[in-house]
C-alpha cells in the first residue's frame, strides 16, 4: 500500500511537471508571438499625460534619434513595465534637481559622444554651471535654484537658434524672469525688478523691437551656464566685449583709477546696470540731470570739462542738423545732393566718435573730433545753400523760358491769323 501511494505521488509529480513545462513553453511562445512595441514609454506615458507627445514636438534630441531612452534609460522595446523600466536595463528615471547637471552632462560633457551629433557644440556647460551662483547653491543643497531644465525645459528642447527656444535671445529675459521676477520664488534673496528695468533699456529696445539679435540680453553680461553678477572691477570688461572703444577710452581716463579706489562699478556709475537708457548729451555737464553732477560740484575742473564737452558735442549736433535740413529741403525739391549727403555722413561719424571719446573725459580729445565734424558740417551746409540757390536759379530760368515761349506762341498765333486773313 505504501508503495502504491508512493507511485501515485510520483505519477502526480510527473504530470504536474509536464503540465508546468507545457505552460512555461506556451507562455514563452505566446510572448514571443506578441509584437514588440516601438516605444513602450510613449504607449503608457501618453495615457498618463496626454500632452507628452505635444511637449516633445521639435525636440532637438528626438530629431537626432534620441528618444525617451536617450535621457531616461530603460528599454522602450519592452511592453512589460517592469522590464522596460528595469535598473538592469539602464533605467535612470526622473532626476532630482541636484542630479540634473550630471544627467545632462552624461552626454553634453562627453566630447566623443557629442561629436557624433554636433562637433561645434561646447562640452563645458556642466563645468561652467558648477562655477555659477546657481551651481554653487545647488551643491550647497539648495534644490530651488535653476538647473539645465529650468532654462532649456525638460521636454521639447530646441536649439538656441530656434525662435521657439526658451533661450532664443528675445526669449531669454522671460526665461530668467520666470524665477528672477517672481518675488514669491526669490523670497527676498535678490531684487526682482531686473527684467522690468531691462525691458526699459536701450538693449531691450534693440533686441525686442528692432529684432537685432546681436543686442545683449541677460546671459550676454551675466554668462549663461556660469551665470553670476559681474564683479565691480570687471564691469568695464563685460561692457567692453561689445563697446570696445568706450572701454578702451575709459581705461585711459582718470576715472578708471578713482572709481576702482572708491569701489564704484565703472560703467554702471553713469549708465546703470539693467535700465541702460540711450545715452545723450543731457548726461554730460555740471548741472542736473547730468550724471557728472552726482560727483562733481559746480566749478570744479571736472565739471568745467564736462560743460565744455557738452557744448562742443551739442554745437556739432546742431550744425549737422542744419546741414541735414538744408540738404533735405534741396532733395525734396528734386536737387541731386547724394554726394553732399555722403559727405555729411562723415560728419555724423565725427559726432559718434566725439561721443565715444567722452569716455576718456578729456575736453581736448572731444574737441578734436567735434572740430573735424564742424568742418564737414560747414562744408555740407554750404553745399546745401548752393543747392537751394541753384534751385532758385532754375525756377527763375524756367519763368524766363516760359515767357519767351509764350511770346513765341503769341507771335506764331498772330502770324497764322495774318496769313489766313481773308483778302479783300
Amino acid at each position, binding site marked *: 500500500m505504501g508503495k502504491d501511494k508512493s507511485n501515485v505521488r510520483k505519477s502526480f509529480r510527473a504530470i504536474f511537471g509536464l503540465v508546468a513545462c507545457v505552460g512555461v513553453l506556451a507562455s514563452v511562445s505566446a510572448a514571443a508571438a506578441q509584437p514588440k512595441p516601438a516605444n513602450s514609454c510613449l504607449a503608457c506615458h501618453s495615457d498618463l499625460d496626454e500632452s507628452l507627445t505635444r511637449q516633445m514636438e521639435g525636440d532637438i534630441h528626438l530629431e537626432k534619434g534620441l528618444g525617451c531612452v536617450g535621457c531616461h534609460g530603460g528599454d522602450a522595446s519592452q511592453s512589460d513595465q517592469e522590464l522596460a523600466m528595469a535598473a538592469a536595463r539602464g533605467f535612470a528615471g526622473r532626476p532630482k534637481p541636484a542630479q540634473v547637471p550630471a544627467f545632462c552632462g552624461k552626454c553634453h560633457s562627453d566630447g566623443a559622444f557629442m561629436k557624433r551629433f554636433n562637433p561645434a557644440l561646447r562640452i563645458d556647460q556642466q563645468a561652467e554651471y558648477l562655477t555659477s551662483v546657481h551651481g554653487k547653491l545647488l551643491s550647497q543643497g539648495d534644490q530651488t535654484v535653476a538647473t539645465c531644465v529650468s532654462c532649456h525645459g525638460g521636454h521639447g528642447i530646441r536649439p538656441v537658434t530656434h525662435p521657439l527656444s526658451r533661450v532664443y535671445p528675445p526669449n531669454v529675459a522671460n526665461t530668467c524672469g520666470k524665477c528672477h521676477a517672481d518675488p514669491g520664488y526669490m523670497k527676498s534673496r535678490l531684487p526682482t525688478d531686473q527684467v522690468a528695468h531691462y525691458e526699459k533699456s536701450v538693449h531691450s529696445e534693440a533686441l525686442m523691437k528692432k529684432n537685432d539679435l546681436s543686442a545683449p540680453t541677460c546671459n550676454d553680461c551675466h554668462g549663461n551656464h556660469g551665470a553670476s553678477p559681474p564683479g565691480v572691477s570687471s564691469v568695464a570688461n563685460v561692457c567692453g566685449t561689445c563697446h570696445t572703444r568706450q572701454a578702451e577710452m575709459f581705461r585711459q581716463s582718470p576715472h578708471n583709477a578713482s572709481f576702482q579706489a572708491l569701489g564704484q562699478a565703472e560703467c554702471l556709475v553713469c549708465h546703470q546696470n539693467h535700465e541702460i537708457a540711450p545715452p545723450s548729451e543731457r548726461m554730460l555737464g555740471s548741472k542736473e540731470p547730468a550724471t557728472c553732477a552726482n560727483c562733481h560740484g559746480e566749478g570744479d575742473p571736472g565739471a568745467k570739462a564736462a560743460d565744455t564737452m557738452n557744448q562742443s558735442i551739442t554745437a556739432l549736433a546742431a550744425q549737422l542738423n542744419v546741414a541735414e535740413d538744408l540738404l533735405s529741403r534741396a532733395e525734396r525739391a528734386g536737387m*541731386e545732393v547724394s554726394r553732399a549727403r555722403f559727405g555729411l555722413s562723415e560728419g555724423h561719424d565725427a559726432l559718434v566718435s566725439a561721443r565715444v571719446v567722452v569716455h576718456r573725459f578729456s575736453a581736448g580729445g572731444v574737441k578734436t573730433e567735434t572740430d573735424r565734424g564742424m568742418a564737414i558740417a560747414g562744408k555740407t551746409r554750404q553745399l546745401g545753400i548752393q543747392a537751394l540757390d541753384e534751385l532758385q536759379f532754375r525756377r527763375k530760368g524756367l519763368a524766363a523760358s516760359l515767357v519767351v515761349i509764350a511770346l513765341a506762341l503769341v507771335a*506764331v498765333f498772330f502770324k*497764322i491769323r495774318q496769313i489766313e486773313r481773308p483778302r479783300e
Partner: protein
Amino acid sequence: MKTTIGFEHQAGAPEASKTEAARQWLRHRLGTAPVEEMAGHKTVPVHRHTIWYYLGGMTLFLFSIQVVTGILLLLYYRPSAEEAFESVQFIMTDVSFGWLVRSIHSWSANLMIATLFIHMFSVFFLKAYRPPREMTWITGVLLLFIAMGFGFSGYLLPWNKLAFFATRVGTEIPRVFPFVGDFFMRFLRGGDEVTGATLTRFFGFHVAILPALTTAILGVHLWLVQYHGMSRPRGTENNNGKEMKFVPNFLLRDIMGWLVALGILAALAAIFPWELGEKADPFASAPAGIRPEWFFLFSFETLKLLPGRIWLFEGEALGILGFTLGAGFWLLVPFLDRNAARGLPSRGFTLIGVFVLIYIVVLTAIGFWS
C-alpha cells in the same frame, strides 16, 4: 468745291528779294526744287478730326529733342558698371545745365512714347491704315516697338538700383520661349547675369543699333506720309474738300504745339528733375517696388496676374505668347480689316481697338497703384 486755306508769297520788298535770291542760289546748288515743290503742294484735310494729325509731328519733335539731348549726354556719359552711375551724377551736379539736358532727355522720352501711343490709336480708330497706307501703318508700329526698345535700354544706363533689378526681371522674360529663350536672354544680357557687359550692350543698342533702325524706318514712314498724303477718315470725304496748305499753315500750327511741348518739358525738368536713385549693387537684395517703365506696366501686370499654370502650359509662357501674337496681329491690321479696306464701316476692329485701349489703361493703372 475745294477750298484751300493758304498763303501766297508777296514779293516786292528789298529784303524779300534778297531772301529769294539766297533761295535761288541754294536751289541751284542743292537741287531742292522738287522738295520745295512738293512741300508747296502738300495740303492737309480740314475736318473735325484734324487735331489728330498733329500727333505725328509732335512725336517727331520730341524725337528730335531726344537726338539732340542724347548727343549732349554722350559727351559725358561713360558706359561701364564702374563709371556709369558716377558719370550721370557728374552730369546732374557738375556739368553746366547737365541736369536740364538729362531731365529733358528723360521726360521727353516718356512724353514721346505717350504721343506715339496716342498717334497710333488715333490712326487706328480713324482707319488711316486703309489702302494704300498699309506700309505707313506697319512702319509706324515698328517705330513704336523700337521706341519701347529705346526706353528699355535707356532705363538701365544710369546703372541705378531700381533699373538694375527691373532689367534683371525684364531680361528674364524671354527665357520662357522654348529652344531660343536661353539664347535670347544671354544675347540681351551679354552673359548669364545682368552685369557691366549688359550695360555696355544696352548702351550699344541705345546709341547705335536702335538709332540706325529708326533712321531707316522713320525715313520710309515720313516718305510714305508725304507720298500718300494725309488720310481722310471715312465720313469726312464730303466736307467740301476743305484743306489747308502744309507750308506754312499746318506747319505754323505744328510749331505752336511744339512750343507748348517745349514749355511743358522745361517746367517738368525744372520742377521735377529726373531722379538718379542709388547706385546698383548686384550683391544687394532686390528693393521693394521693382517695376518697369510705365509703358511696359500693362504687360508686366498681365504676367503677374496670370496663374502659374494654365492647363498644360506655364502661365507666363502663355502670356508672352499672347503678347507676341497680339503684336503680330496689330502689325497686320491693315491686311486683316477687309471692311476698312473696302471703305466700309469696320465696327469689329473699332471694338478690338477700344478693348485694347481699355486693357492697356486699366492694367497700367493697376500696375501703377498696386
